[in-house]
């Protein structure tokens, strides 16, 4: 401490220079990423100006009429947009909760399997759906849940249903369907990171617990779950910003006139107005709003995490 304090400014500068020279390769590499970030994340933000214009392709970004907050006013007086925000947030939260819980549960269950071959087999099979694209998954979901689909056939033959149910004609089934599709597709994949964390828990803890007479359930409750705590928090913070990205493909591909009021998300709204109706300004305004909500959510959750004294992102 005392040495540091007596350093002259000149020496400090020299040191910094030497440090810079020593790390120049690292700095060059880092610079590349900074440039990448500027080009691909910050420069496009310039396009946000469209949200405040009545943008026309022919007039371009410099020639279009400036209209101030007209499109934002339009958005918040539009019942559809309000509904779309609700849908996005609700589906986002349901998906987040469902996928997180199932992934943790699955990881713990898998960890309890002693047979290595069986464990590996289940793990491999369970994460394969992650690699299917949504178009394939929605195709499967759509067919399975149609009136003549497997699900109806099974339930009717088991006499659980009296007659086939048209799942996509009921608004109340849509959110669960989306959540289940997400769970089916992502559980195995999401479980990987939890499994890795579990393996890093000191085995001595389990041994000690066993000595004290803890059963399986108690070991899970008192060792595994607390061991996972910090990972869960970090992943939650990272994913909370994604709540607003509740999805595009699933909702877009599975929708129909009946369930549109509950299925439309912000992304679909941006597509229909921004691209479909070529109102780029309105699309941009909706996009800005989405980014804003995302930012608020992350900062808020990070703040809560900080307050409760846990891991945090920044």
């Amino acid at each position: 401490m005392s040495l540091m304090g007596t350093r002259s400014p000149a020496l400090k500068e020299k040191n910094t220079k030497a440090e810079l020279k020593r790390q120049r390769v690292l700095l060059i590499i880092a610079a590349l990423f900074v440039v990448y970030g500027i080009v691909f994340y910050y420069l496009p933000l310039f396009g946000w100006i469209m949200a405040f214009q009545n943008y026309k392709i022919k007039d371009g970004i410099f020639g279009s009429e400036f209209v101030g907050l007209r499109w934002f006013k339009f958005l918040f007086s539009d019942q559809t947009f309000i509904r779309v925000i609700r849908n996005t947030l609700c589906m986002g939260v349901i998906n987040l909760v469902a996928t997180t819980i199932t992934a943790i549960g699955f990881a713990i269950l898998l960890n309890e399997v002693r047979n290595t071959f069986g464990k590996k087999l289940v793990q491999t099979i369970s994460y394969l759906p992650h690699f299917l694209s949504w178009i394939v998954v929605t195709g499967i979901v759509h067919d399975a849940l149609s009136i003549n689909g497997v699900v109806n056939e099974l339930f009717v033959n088991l006499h659980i249903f009296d007659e086939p149910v048209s799942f996509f004609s009921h608004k109340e089934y849509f959110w669960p369907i989306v959540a289940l599709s997400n769970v089916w597709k992502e559980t195995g994949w999401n479980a990987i990171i939890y499994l890795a964390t579990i393996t890093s828990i000191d085995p001595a803890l389990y041994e000690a617990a066993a000595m004290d007479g803890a059963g399986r359930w108690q070991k899970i409750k008192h060792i595994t779950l607390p061991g996972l705590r910090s990972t869960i928090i970090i992943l939650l913070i990272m994913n909370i910003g994604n709540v607003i990205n509740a999805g595009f493909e699933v909702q877009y591909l599975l929708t129909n006139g009946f369930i549109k009021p509950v299925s439309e998300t912000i992304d679909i709204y941006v597509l229909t107005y921004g691209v479909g109706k070529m109102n780029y300004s309105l699309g941009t305004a909706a996009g800005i709003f989405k980014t804003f909500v995302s930012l608020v959510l992350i900062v808020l959750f990070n703040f809560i995490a900080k307050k409760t004294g846990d891991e945090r992102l920044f």
Partner: protein
Amino acid sequence: MKSKKIFALTMACMMGLGAFAGCAKKKDEILNWNFFAAMHGSEINDGNEIQELIAKDTGIRVKETWLAGQTSAEAIGSIVASGELPEFIDGGDGSEELYKAGYLVAWDDYLAKPEFANLKEMYSDKEWEMFKHEGHIYWANVFQNSYQGKPVSHGFNDEAFWIQVRVLEWANYPTIDTLDDYFKLLEDYYAENKTNADGTKIIPYTCLCEDWRYFCIENAPQFLDGYPNDGSVIVNLDDPNNPKIVDYNTTPTAKRYFAKLNEVYKKGMMDPEFAIQTYDEYMAKLSTGAVLGMCDQWWDFAGTVNDNFKANKLDEKGYNYVPLGPTIDKGMTNRWYIGATDTLNSASGIAVTTSCKDPDKAFKFLNRMLDQDMHNLRFWGIEGTDYLVDENGIFYRTQEMRDKWADSNYTKSHCCMYAYFPQYGGMSRDGKNTMQPGDSTSEFFAGMADPLVKCFKAYGYDSYNQFLRSTDGIVGIWYPMYQFSNNLKTDTDAGVAWTKMGETKHTWLPQIVVADDFESAWNEYMAAYADCKPEEFLKYMQDTLDNLIKS
């Protein structure tokens, strides 16, 4: 040694020549151009026989691509945003946007030149005027346009309540006047026939609601009130000098029509999946012959469905559809069929884009499409293979040829209609044959299965349009009004209202059909509809109509 050198020199020369030859050959090579239609269609195979013949003739091979998965608005929107255009395009409802973005080549200079006489001939000067934007023409609609304006049609290309001929036969060919009659007939038939011979369950009535095709559920009220298909509004002519725009969505007839659908649904006669089916599923359903009736446009279903019937010999079971033109009450006249006139839809059509490097060649290609020999090749096929000519010069097909043209495998590898490129209906230039095989009287009846022929005979009709029993009468110069609403975008109040009305109807119409309590659902729908400010839209349409009449 010397000989070797000479040999090498010769070789070098030859290679040089070869290279030159290569260059020369390249100049003659066939250009591969693209066409995109903001419609659904099926791609033909590479190396399609007639396509190759056309390519050799014109030097251009056009690859046609269609909507895949996305809606037409999204497709055109992304093309406009990216600026990546095919050489030819039919932008559908997005045509106006393509023009506004400055992506289309004006036709005027070409139409003025004698070598593009075929294109010029497509429309009268007055009709071309309708296509003009700021004084220039950017596209030409290729449909519903008969050669020299004289349609000859046994067909009926438009909207109707369709019914399978077996149902009519079963009821001994009754007269259907009203919507109630129509559903009564379906109900009676269904009461006695629950399944088809092959065991599939009969669906008495279905109704497509997907994307823009929701007109199948949406626009019947205008017809039921006796008006023609203005598409987005009714033009009321009670005072002939002062036509008035009326919203058909809120009329008492609309309410009665949806109440009827609601009743049909509650009776279990409506396809339970009607609101959630995709177009493909709908077509598959119709193609099995399980659906007794629906409201649709002929062009939306008949091509595929009739080909499927033919290929699987289902037409012999009386599954083919004939159109009916019911009204809401008895004793009304109807305008489901507006007579043998062409409908000019100036809102969309084939266009050449600024991405085309040689517009002159593009217009020559379009012009060539209308030459009689080329037109015959596109729609009739190759003489000797696809059709024969009798001693009087009349084209005809053998049954084998007809079957082949109903087989999609054959048509994909052999036929190339370029259907979205300039074409004609009506009589061909020789005055004997029709431009399109489907319009030829002999071909029309020769291609029909027995039950269908029997049905025509029982009613004493010789064309589909007679089934509608519509009143003749001239439609106004504004007809169809939808050409003024289809291009509306959200940058005006009328456009916002139009968009929201569409969204509201899309969401609500299926809901009121399945509602337990129709009355309260209808009131809720009407409240939601009023929130869209339809008056803004109707005012715009009224102004447009008034201006049109003035000019």
